[in-house]
């Protein structure tokens, strides 16, 4: 039994959400003028900034692919992102792993064959952390890529879900993640419903996996609506300035 009561018998979570509710999402696109595309997302208290450069000429020759564009992902967690003061590791393996996970996720949706021998750089910076950093990063990367005008077959939407006391939970915050709740992060393509990434922290009973995946997928679809709305608003604004 975990010491923290993750869901009260009244059905409220520590922050007052019900089990199947997402946190508040705030998005902005085009926040950086230097980058080709950029976006900012807040999922609850998790805040992430994305900048996309490219397609452009690769910096290193070694990175050149002859039939398609190469995607680089740099995922970073700011040292000021959490309350605890941590000694920063130079090349944190965990960060590299997440970077490559995100890279693989986007390789499936970006139409890279349009830009052979070029490079697309995605920089992801977590500014504040409160659980669910990976899925926030994927969501914001989608926004930034669209903002940069890079052709993609679909959105990539991500969401996490957990399982506690026979009850699946959507979109875990830091407190819930750290209370030994199994955390599943799912990224999917909303049009086809295909799952492009699935990661599970700590153990989850096999019988419970399916309901948790279903819930996370449901969360992804909700995210899609939010992201879509954000893109449409910004496009409308853009169209207005172009037309005027």
């Amino acid at each position: 039994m975990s010491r923290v009561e993750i869901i009260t018998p009244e059905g409220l979570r520590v922050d007052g959400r019900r089990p199947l509710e997402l946190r508040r999402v705030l998005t902005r696109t085009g926040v950086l003028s230097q980058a080709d595309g950029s976006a900012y997302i807040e999922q609850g208290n998790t805040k992430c900034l994305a900048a996309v450069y490219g397609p452009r000429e690769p910096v290193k020759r070694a990175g050149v692919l002859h039939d398609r564009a190469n995607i680089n992902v740099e995922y970073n967690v700011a040292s000021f992102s959490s309350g605890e003061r941590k000694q920063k590791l130079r090349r944190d393996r965990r960060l590299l792993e997440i970077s490559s996970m995100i890279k693989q996720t986007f390789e499936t949706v970006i139409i890279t064959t349009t830009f052979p021998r070029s490079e697309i750089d995605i920089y992801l910076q977590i500014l504040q952390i409160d659980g669910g950093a990976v899925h926030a990063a994927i969501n914001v990367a989608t926004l930034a890529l669209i903002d940069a005008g890079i052709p993609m077959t679909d959105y990539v939407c991500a969401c996490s879900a957990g399982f506690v006391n026979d009850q699946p939970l959507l979109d875990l915050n830091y407190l819930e993640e750290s209370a030994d709740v199994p955390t599943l992060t799912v990224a999917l393509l909303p049009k086809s419903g295909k799952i492009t990434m699935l990661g599970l922290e700590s153990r989850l009973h096999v019988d419970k996996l399916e309901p948790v995946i279903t819930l996370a997928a449901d969360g992804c679809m909700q995210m899609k609506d939010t992201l879509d709305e954000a893109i449409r608003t910004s496009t409308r604004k853009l169209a207005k300035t172009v037309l005027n």
Partner: protein
Amino acid sequence: MLKTKAFVRKTKRGAVVKVVKEHYLRDDIYCGVPSCRTCLSAQQHHHHAPQAAVLTSPRTTTKFTSPHFIVPDTNVLYHQIDVMEHAAFTDVIVLQTVLEELKHRSTPVYQRVRQLIADPARRFYVFCNEHNRDCYVERAVEESPNDRNDRAIRTAVAWYNVHLKDCIPAAATVLVTDDAENRRKAVAEKLPVYSVKEYVSSMADHPELIDMVATVNEENIDEEEKFAYPEHLANSQISAGLKSGAFFQGKLSISANNFLEGSVFAEVDKEEKTVMVVGREHLNRAIHGDIVALQFLPRSEWKVPVGVILEEEQMEKDEDGAVDDVAAKHAMDVDGVAAAAAAPEKVPTAKVVGIIKRNWRPFCGTIEKASVKSTGGMSSQQSVFFWAMDKKIPKIRIRTRQAEDLVGRRIIVAIDGWAKNSRYPTGHFVRTLGDVGDRATETEVVLLEHDVPFAPFSPQVLSHLPVEGEDWIVRDDLHLAGRTDFRHLDVCSIDPPGCTDIDDALHCRPLPNGNLEVGVHIADVSHFVRPDNAMDMEARRRGTTVYLVNKRIDMLPSLLGTNLCSLRSNVDRLAFSCIWEMKRDATVVSVNYTKSVIRSKASLTYDEAQARLDDTTANDPVTTGIKLLNALAKKLRAQRMEAGALTLASPEVRFKLEEDQQDPVDVELKELKDTNALVEEFMLLANIWVAKKVYQHFPESSILRRHPQPPPSNFEALQKAVAELGISIDASTSRALADSLDKAIVPTDPYINKLIRILTTRCMMQAVYFCSGTLSEPDFWHYGLATPIYTHFTSPIRRYSDLVVHRLLAVAIGYEKGYVSELVDKVKLKELSDVLNYRHRQAQQASRSSVELFTNLFFKDKTLQEEAYVIRVMKNGFSVLIPKFGIEGYVYAEAAPTPLNTKASTTTTTTAIQPSSPFTYDADQNRLVARAAAAAAAGTTNGKEEEEEQVEIKLFSKCTVIVCVEEAGGAARRSKLVVRLVEPWVHGVSVRLEDLVRAQKEQEKEAGEGGKVVKKPKRK
């Protein structure tokens, strides 16, 4: 649904980390009143299913006639939980603020409140005010968290009052708080508010409630104002002292014999030692089980363990501190002796300076009759004393209106506080259990006193039972996957008569290659009890099934325990099987563990199985199996004995109960037959092999069982005593001990060997569960069984540890593919094994108390003369064991003031210190010696010549005693067994059966005549 307005709360955890949390405010938090239209329309608007309406009927009391709900604050729930648990309190709104505060203050109380909330009949409603948009209160600048919470509570009450105006006219929500400041503010805000006392006294239908109101912070104006304990130090001072080494901390355990003598196990000079705490002042209001901070006394004040038994009657008379004197006197006596003889070692002695954690729990006990003043009516409240059943607890002062009603009843009392100017703690009445001596009441007391959870299983737990209920069957399509089908085998079970929870079954058959196949089949409980559901949680909480003489407290619901899991004959059952291939000389060739389906061919009792063994003509498959098993068991046993396994003894008795009345009609000692040993042997085999397998797969997280080697010092006293009989006991290894026990025979008295085995058992350490990752491998050793590794696998119906081992083994053999992380979490398993050890110990003690209870019932109205052996000698008496009944009693070497002191204490004057004993205590040889002259004098007057010069009582002396039961009531807290010496004759101590019987009759007569004086049976 979601308010998009997010609040950020900043709290400081520890000293440095700033925690930023989101706090969502919602507008879908409903009031819980079914007729509320506002909430109903809100629910429709949010497309919510209508929330469970809890607060169905606003309450009224005799004085407050307008309908209302009550909102208690945190302190009310915390201090007055006993009152709130009373059935008269319904329709209560519990605020989230209150619950959270409560959770931080005390988990047990929080859980009790949670239970109240879960009970639909009580209609306690949790209102999540912290997440309600209209009730959230932000902490103001310079406002303390407490004040902020009080304000939040008042805001919620105000909200309710406005909110309810539309649906229930004239309905109000009443704040109940004992905080005067809070009350003042509430009045200023025009909120209805009462203190607990005010409110409870308005409930005229329940006058008993007023007794249950705890007195908090009311300094007791004591009649003994001159008396004062030293002040307890503040927490900061304690922690500073602990850090600097001036104090040390430990858990206080009070001696069972003397409630003014406590001890703490603590580190002294880098060595674990027992530290004594002697006397009321030095104990300083600490009670048994408290975690206390202590300070050493100067070496000159160190004491020698007193070694006397204080009787309740003596405690009775300690109004003026007589007992302190008794204890002190004895201590001084010993000091005197010590000065003369070689000084016995003084023990480090300390005093309590502060209390770190209280161990106050509700206590069962009785009201002290002498403290009750007759009032005629029962209107006025009076202060009475309460004695807990637990002898280690001091008497508790309670205020009650029903004192006269409570005399002779078992009641529960909770301690509220212990002011420094009060000699005794103050408490309040919780509830009545029933009459003293009533079987059901006393059994409940046994369960309560040993913290055995015995409430019926909750509907939540029962919801996890198979839906088919009794009709559940093994279905080939569902259950056969991954299981071996053993239904064709001739499996049988052997259990005590009347056993309904059959855990284990056995089979044995010859193999074509000449070897034997042996199977142990254990009920597959883990199939039904899935990890972490409510049923699993409940089983984990209970830990074990508790067996009392007349009752069984199950760990699992009986549908599982006695039916679906129980390996009954001629039905298909799921099992977990261990199959060995063995040579004829009982060496194991191979082993296989598998989940299986079996169909037991016969459920036998030990006697039936024995009959089949003895029947040379029978050759049906089951009997042949048993015969093969028996042959193997004998060889296995020989192997174990060779390795050094111990055969110990304990005087176990079984009561024959009269069917309907449950009165014990006869006592018999449990005897062991071949078949008992047979089953035991194979269970041990299964446990050992499963332990090996599980440990191999989970070296860090197996639940195993170990039995540590007892330290040599445990045996010192026994070795010294048996040396006089020409016996030596070598406890260096279990093998040596087993051998020396076999040789410990006194030809003239065969019982001595058993007696030595019984006493050896008491020198042993407790066997305990542990998690394999927490100890190194050599420490896994099981001393008693002489095996390097051991666990419990064979009784999953009645032990939770076995269930965990089943789960581990299922994973180890690849049957269970996925498993929860808790199963392999070292820390959690350690916690679990600690809980299981505790429950196991409590269950054992509960069983023992139950046997004691029934022993007393058996001896009720009987006075028997029996043979006995001395098993312990102390300064003012000695313990004897009566082999025939397997009971123990204490014989006081001092002349008892009256033969049967049922009413003695109320009438005898304060002769606190009893007439001097004819015995003198010889500390050197640990014996009691009576002067020859006295003995001779007694002999002559009796017309019976005493042969010996002096009477000597030492270990293993044989004597004759009279056993009878002293009824509860008056001084005695419970009816207890009284043992009196008959033979050897010592003047002033020994009694004759005839005299006793006569005295009893006299007493009855006197009681009939209303006489009060009880005379000693004078010897003429």
